[in-house]
């Protein structure tokens, strides 16, 4: 009992002297909420670095990175806790699913503002979103996959996803298919699903069975589980295409192509603008290849090992896409 009383007193003491420790008026403070874990995920690493750069250029601005973990069901509580802390004016995050959560938080904490990259929601005064045209991203790797498959004498390409989600259904997969068909009208798509973002061994089994079945190239949209696809490609002597730059490091021998998003540039630009007081609230933008936010990374060893003719073909496709041909215009999402 004595112990408990002592503990209570100690705790109360800490609490009371802590209350006076708040910092004086600050111009602005930014929280970066990572819905997942930043390290190891290029898209989130770029989110953090872009925001950090914008904040560094504006002395006096507070900056904090908070990781929400992989469990989607915990994100809402985490966001609410950030807003409830009262420490932050702007919450920067990135994920197509986040705007819906932000709307719920904004209803309770109207003073907090949100910027969400890689997402689309218009007409919400507390939220600014920018969506990448991932149709184009899918198209780029789709074209490469199609061309390479034809080159190797196969007419089918694979797509292994962790699970179905809106961006995959509406942008990535249609873009990938369009790319395949643009490379060869006879190409067909094989879709496989893992069921979660981490079961790399199951991904490897799915990929192995596709590769055994004369598929030469697979697009992996599976987070950590994508590693399984890379491993399977390694032992089958086949190829993988990837949706962001990390692929080349994960599988230098088998990842033949990575479509990229200029996430750090976008986040830097928009956060800077917002901190400078630009009123983008309620605006939802879409950016893509024409303005350079969607591109293709030519720096992969396996890509460089591809036949010269294929790479020349890819250069043409990229150049055309940057000019808006074919046009994957998105007015909304």
């Amino acid at each position, binding site marked *: 009992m004595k112990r408990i009383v002592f503990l209570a007193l100690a705790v109360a003491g800490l609490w009371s002297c802590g209350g006076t420790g708040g910092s004086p008026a600050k111009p602005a403070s930014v929280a970066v909420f990572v819905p997942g*874990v930043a*390290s*190891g*995920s290029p898209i989130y690493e770029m989110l953090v670095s872009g925001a950090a750069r914008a904040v560094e250029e504006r002395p006096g601005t507070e900056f904090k990175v908070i990781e929400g973990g*992989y469990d989607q069901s915990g994100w809402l509580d985490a966001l609410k806790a950030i807003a409830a802390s009262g420490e932050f004016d702007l919450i920067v995050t990135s994920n197509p699913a986040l705007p819906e959560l932000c709307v719920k938080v904004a209803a309770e904490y109207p003073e907090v503002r949100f910027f969400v990259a890689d997402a689309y929601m218009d007409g919400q005064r507390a939220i600014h979103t920018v969506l990448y045209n991932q149709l184009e991203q899918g198209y780029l790797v789709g074209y490469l996959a199609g061309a390479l498959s034809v080159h190797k004498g196969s007419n089918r390409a694979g797509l292994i996803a962790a*699970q*179905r989600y809106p961006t995959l259904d509406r942008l990535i997969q249609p873009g990938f298919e369009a790319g395949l068909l643009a490379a060869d009208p006879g190409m067909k798509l*094989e*879709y*496989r*699903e893992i*069921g*979660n973002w*981490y*079961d*790399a*061994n*199951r991904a*490897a*089994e*799915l990929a*192995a*069975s596709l590769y*055994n*079945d004369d598929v030469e190239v697979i697009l992996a949209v599976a987070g*950590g*589980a994508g*590693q*399984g696809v*890379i*491993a399977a490609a*390694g*032992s089958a002597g086949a190829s993988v295409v990837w949706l962001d730059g990390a692929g080349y*490091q*994960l*599988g*230098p*021998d088998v990842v033949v192509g990575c479509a990229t998003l200029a996430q750090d540039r976008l986040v830097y630009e928009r956060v800077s603008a917002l901190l400078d007081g630009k009123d983008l609230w309620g605006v939802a933008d879409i950016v893509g290849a024409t303005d350079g936010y969607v591109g293709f990374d030519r720096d992969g060893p396996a890509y460089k090992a591809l036949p010269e003719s294929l790479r020349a073909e890819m250069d043409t496709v990229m150049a055309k896409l940057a000019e808006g041909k074919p046009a994957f215009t998105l007015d909304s999402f």
Partner: protein
Amino acid sequence: MNSFLPEVAMVTIAALAPILAAALGGLATEYVGVLNIALEGLIMAGGFAYVAVGGTWGPAAGMVAAITVPAVLALAQDGFARKARADAFVVGLAMNMLIPGAASVMSELIFGTKGVVALSALASGTLAPGAVHVPVVGPVLFSQRWSDILALLASAVVALGLALTPFGLRLRAAGMKPESVELAGLSPGRLRDGAYALSGAACGVAGMAMAAAIGAWVPNLSAGRGWIALVAIYLGRKRLKGTFLASLSFAALLALATLAQAVPSLPAGLLGAVPYLVTAVAVILGSAARGQYARKIKA
């Protein structure tokens, strides 16, 4: 279509390797009468130890670590449960929380990332890559990864140990009646420790096989294999042969569910539920049949 059966066999064996190793390890603690719910965490510990140690000192050292680290963890787990008279089940659940957390922290320390750590040097090659084109046997046998073969061999060793050695006999005796081993001058507690260490080591081999299969550490590597191993133990009525058969049939079901995705009209998401549903129905019907049989004898 003529490649279908060999393909099922191939995927089944790959799926079986980690499940069987973990299940036989778990069977060791079932022999002494405790349910080691921490198989899932121990597999992860094995996988992480393989990558963390193997990354610096090579795959062989990684393998040794993959066996010893989970064995020591399991030993500590049991030691705590016994000494503090804590509920073994709760301690196991806590291990399942502790290990991924610790792996993440250590991954950050060692590799500077909490995410995927891919080290191609740790990836397992296949047994005899050149022999893949031998009909039937080629793909089924020679295209297996050596890490999977190793896990199967380790499972065989565990099975032999449980079935044919005095140690296995003592474990069973301790599980049936602790006083029987006590009277024989043995310590039931030590035997339980031994069973736990064995289950840890076997799970470590399973984790090693999973990490070597993809040549990487992936957070949440085990992805439910430990739970499937528990299912196999209970499905096999906590017997050796039963556990083996249950592991095999469950691995086959999982392989079928994987390969069935090739049929475009089947919803891929629902296929994942099929192995579990089929097994649940089989368990209930099986019990009902046994019940009927028993009643018949009585009447």
